[in-house]
């Protein structure tokens, strides 16, 4: 079972995408991305693969690419995505499928 331990190899591999995701903790970056996501991704120097994953909000692919959960969380918050939605995506489930496995599905 893939572990995705965030070690120094993964951190190095994900540095560029994580820097971009981390920048969503800044209001100006969020506004710029909301206004013109393509320009924002170009300015951050993301490559085509990275831009595509961000466009599709492909949380699982981003994770496999080296994104830190905690950097992904910034983009998720800025774009109205909850943590259970991200966790469901990592598991390869729909949100409803994931919530059905939880004790208190309304606690989110």
């Amino acid at each position: 079972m893939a572990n995705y331990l965030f070690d120094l190899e993964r951190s190095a591999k994900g540095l560029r995408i994580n820097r971009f995701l981390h920048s969503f903790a800044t209001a100006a970056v969020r506004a710029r991305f909301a206004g013109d996501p393509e320009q924002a991704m170009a300015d951050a120097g993301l490559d085509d693969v990275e831009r595509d994953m961000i466009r599709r909000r492909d949380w699982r692919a981003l994770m496999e690419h080296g994104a830190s959960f905690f950097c992904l969380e910034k983009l998720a918050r800025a774009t109205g995505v909850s943590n259970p939605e991200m966790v469901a995506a990592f598991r390869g489930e729909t949100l409803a499928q994931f919530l059905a496995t939880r004790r208190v599905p309304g606690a989110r």
Partner: protein
Amino acid sequence: MATIIGGIGTSHVPTIAMAFDRGKQADPDWAPLFAGYEPAAAWLADKQPDVLVFCANDHATTFFFDHYPTFALGVGDEYAIADEGLGPRPIPRLRGHAALARHIACSLVEDEFDLTIFQGLPLDHGLHSPLTMMWPSRPDWPGQVVPLMVNVLQHPMPTPRRCFKLGHHLRKAILSYPDDLKVAIVGTGGLSHQLIGERAGFNNEPWDREFLELIERDPERLAAMSLDDFRRLGGNEGAEVIMWLIMRGAIAPAARAIHRSYYLPMTTAMAVAVFE
């Protein structure tokens, strides 16, 4: 002389802060969580510590992976509330006890802990998601904080043994502070959860219950475990409970849990324990 009145162990899940900020006290899905914090809030209101030393972690908010510390001690007079993607939470800035923090810094570096020192930087939910459940934030906080931020995000992380030792030396540092101050130690994180990979959504309630016993009665056994043990038993992200070991090392060895609560609604097991 400063005294250590006891400690608190607590989860620091961001949804705790969301439940608080949205006033979910009466929502049946959240009421058990709020109930679990009531004894901790009552204990703090009764004991009135001047300072809370918080063993917590930043979540790639203030510290980024281009420059990532193992142990970072805040020595500032105040800490802004960090923006984590939704703007800062509507709570007052935290006030830091700079003089105590500087004393701790000098004592720990002399004792061969290789601290990073920070000031003038904002703090994220790792510290204030549990804090608002236990300490009044209106009109302002009743006391000051000293934040001790721990790397639990990027491997290599400090060993459980190192965290427990840090707690022992933190105790020595605080008890040697010359002014009268009542200090409580807060250890945050966990309990079991995994957020990434195919095992995302993993929990382990039996291990969580055992952890809550061991942190009280036999922390030495926890300190002897490896980080891999913690990850296997409590999930990748659940291994952050090593921060409770710093707290446990800093309070009296004979301290006993006077309160414990446990609630596992969604992805992360949320626990609160008070030690005196």
